[in-house]
């Protein structure tokens, strides 16, 4: 990408809108191609706002007794799913928030939800089991018990689901009900991200390291030296850069050339307290980070993982989640006090660069 070098953005956060939910906001996402923004709070309140204005469209409280744990918004359609401590998953309509289907997964907490990229399947992690349902809530597949509670799930392609738990990552072909691959490592894996082509598997580990594997070669490596556990990971859309949390700095590993093995990571020192959320823009090399100190920063990265901030704002309290609008022209952050901030994100450039208007 030689054109990236001449790209010199002067972007910034512009005032957008703010709103409030009832409790600590833990999950958020854009629905209806950015027309709607959905926020969930820890107590089980769910709120839908107009994407442009922040005007409330609908809200509901106490959706999951004991509290909400996850939200997943359908990539194409007009539905989203929520899960909670009650062991239930609700599939809801975006327009009114009405529950279309409630799935009872049993007694355990349902902590993770992921729609497949084409939106045909919803993967659900509940305690040691993972199951897959279709859009109308019919069970299509269920796993055996994992060795421990499943800590992360993600789709590697339309029929293949990756799960992480203590000691291993497993790839399941959920259509043919078989295990495609097992990657083992004695450690508690707390987070997982796949590169967009599905080859690189990166996991944050409880022992304050990032472990990754290349599925094609079976090679693996461990990146140590983090002060805390890297609970947040994000790949850029080209799969070149992996941004990781684990302290107040953002550590970025570059997979260009022979890296990241044997290379020094890029490091971004923007925050005074540990990173609490991390997300690359949908296109391009912009990474947004939120911190326990309440700051939100967008940084433009170079191929080596280093980079400069292009915009910053204060969200008021610990940033619970951040989300780029699908067109990358707005960034949303929700915080521990239940405040929602949405900024217009504008990058002025001399050259056209894909992903930015």
């Amino acid at each position, binding site marked *: 990408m030689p054109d990236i070098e001449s790209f010199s953005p002067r972007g910034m956060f512009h005032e957008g809108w703010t709103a409030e939910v009832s409790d*600590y906001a*833990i999950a958020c996402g854009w629905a209806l191609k950015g027309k709607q923004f959905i926020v969930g709070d*820890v*107590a089980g309140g769910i709120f839908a706002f107009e994407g442009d204005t922040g005007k409330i469209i609908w809200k509901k409280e106490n959706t999951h007794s*004991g*509290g909400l*744990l996850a939200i997943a918004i359908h990539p194409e359609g007009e539905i989203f799913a929520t899960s909670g*401590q009650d062991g239930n998953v609700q599939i809801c309509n975006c327009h009114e928030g009405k529950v279309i289907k409630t799935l009872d997964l049993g*007694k355990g*907490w349902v*902590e993770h939800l992921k729609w497949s990229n084409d939106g045909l399947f919803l993967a659900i992690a509940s*305690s040691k089991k993972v199951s897959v349902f279709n859009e109308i809530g019919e069970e299509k597949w269920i796993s055996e018990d994992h060795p*421990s*509670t499943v800590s992360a799930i993600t789709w590697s392609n339309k029929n293949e689901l990756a799960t992480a738990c*203590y000691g291993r990552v497993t790839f399941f072909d959920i259509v043919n009900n078989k295990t495609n691959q097992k990657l083992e*490592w*004695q*450690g*508690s894996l707390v987070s997982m991200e796949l590169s967009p082509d599905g080859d690189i598997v990166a996991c944050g580990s*409880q*022992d304050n390291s990032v472990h990754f594997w290349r599925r094609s070669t079976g090679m693996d490596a461990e990146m140590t030296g983090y*002060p*805390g*556990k890297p*609970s947040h990971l994000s790949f850029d859309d080209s799969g070149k850069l992996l941004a990781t949390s684990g302290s107040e700095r953002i550590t970025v590993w570059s997979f260009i050339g022979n890296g990241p093995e044997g290379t020094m990571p890029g490091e971004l020192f923007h925050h005074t307290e*540990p990173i609490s959320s991390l997300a690359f823009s949908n296109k391009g090399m912009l990474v947004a980070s939120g911190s326990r100190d309440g700051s939100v920063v967008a940084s433009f990265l170079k191929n080596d993982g280093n980079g400069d901030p292009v915009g910053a704002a204060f969200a008021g309290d610990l940033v*619970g989640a951040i989300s780029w609008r699908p067109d990358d022209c707005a960034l949303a952050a929700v915080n*521990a006090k239940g405040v929602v901030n949405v900024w217009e994100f504008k990058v002025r450039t001399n050259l056209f660069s894909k992903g930015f208007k």
Partner: protein
Amino acid sequence: MSIKDKVPVTILTGFLGSGKTTLLNRILSEEHGKRIAVIENEYGEVGIDQGLVINADEEVFEMSNGCICCTVRGDLIRVLGNLMKRRDKFDYVLVETTGLADPGPVAQTFFMDEEISSEFTLDGIVTLVDAAHIDQQLGRSDESSEQVAFADVLVLNKTDLVSDDALDTLESRLRDMNRMTRIIRAENAKVPIETVLNLSAFDLDQILKRRPTFLEPEYPFEWTGVYDLDAGKYELMLEEGPDPEMSLVALANQGESEEELKDGAECSVRLYAEKANTLEPGNTIPYGEHINLKLEDKGNKSFILNIEKPTKIGLFTQHTAEEFNMKVIKSDENNEIPFNNERFWQAEHEHDDEVGSIAIERFGDVDPEKLNTWMGRLLSEKGVDIFRTKGFISYSGNPRRIVFQGVHMLFTAQPDKEWGNEPRRNQLVFIGRNLNEKEMQEGFDKCLI
């Protein structure tokens, strides 16, 4: 966030049937003004009657480096990670572990995981013991002895099912295993709430304020007699007894009240820690010194006590007076002066269990570098077997007392209050499995200046 803002967590351990759930319900039903969240690993027969109860299966996560101190409890990290977002709903957390849980990883979770340690503070480990069954359990399983070893408070429960004599024996066995714990006897888990909650057992500053010494009393002497003596010369006369020698500390101005006796005992414990001077029969007994009476000869042996002005003398003796038919006799009148008051003490004795406590008490200063080297080596070699460490040390050149504590290899040391006029001394307690007391004491002695 300061420790004051962190949510305190009490860990409740004990074998199945020891009464954990009963105690839990007792705590929850009491009017203590706290909103308590409960994390429960054991699905007992007795239900818990309260709102915020979270069930979680215990998940012990070892790390790839194989280091035992990095082993944490994944279930607690998950549940507490969620609970910290609900801080407006509770101000205290109780974790009830399964009967077979190893308390090490539970405790370590609060030190090893940054997210958890930034929001929660481990307040204390409370272990319930079924007085009727613990003897067998200790013989059969490592877990029960580890639960005893880790405890800040041991609740000796179901005492109504056991005789007083058996309880005394059991208590002394438990005391041998863990000398820094507080033992509370209870029927039906009935204990005052303040003895199990808000202990700040991991906040050494607090503990030392309440209890100037970590060690629960266990004395190197069995008996004290207080004698009211006029000025003059006296003889301490002993017949043949069970030992060819006996240690003794004589204190002038010894009061007779329980409090004064305990003060005297505390003072004598320190003196007993020093090397004894040997006295032959006929020698004069000095005051405020650890001495060792030679009693090898047959028949009566006399030692001299000189009293300059009327005072009460306290004799803190290794064995009871009765064992040697010990008497105080006024020399010129040849009449026996009976003691005004006597007190028996819980004496040290042999340790049978693999798990035990080692206490090191020494006056003087230590060389910080030597101590670090010694502790570093000790914990890396024996860290697996050392469950808990607590103590305070006097660093040479440092006006403040250094307090420290550890769980396995995890170890923290911090400066505490200034010594002031107090004599400089060191007190260390190690609780662990198969520890070599002599070796450790010698190791520590080499760090002394």
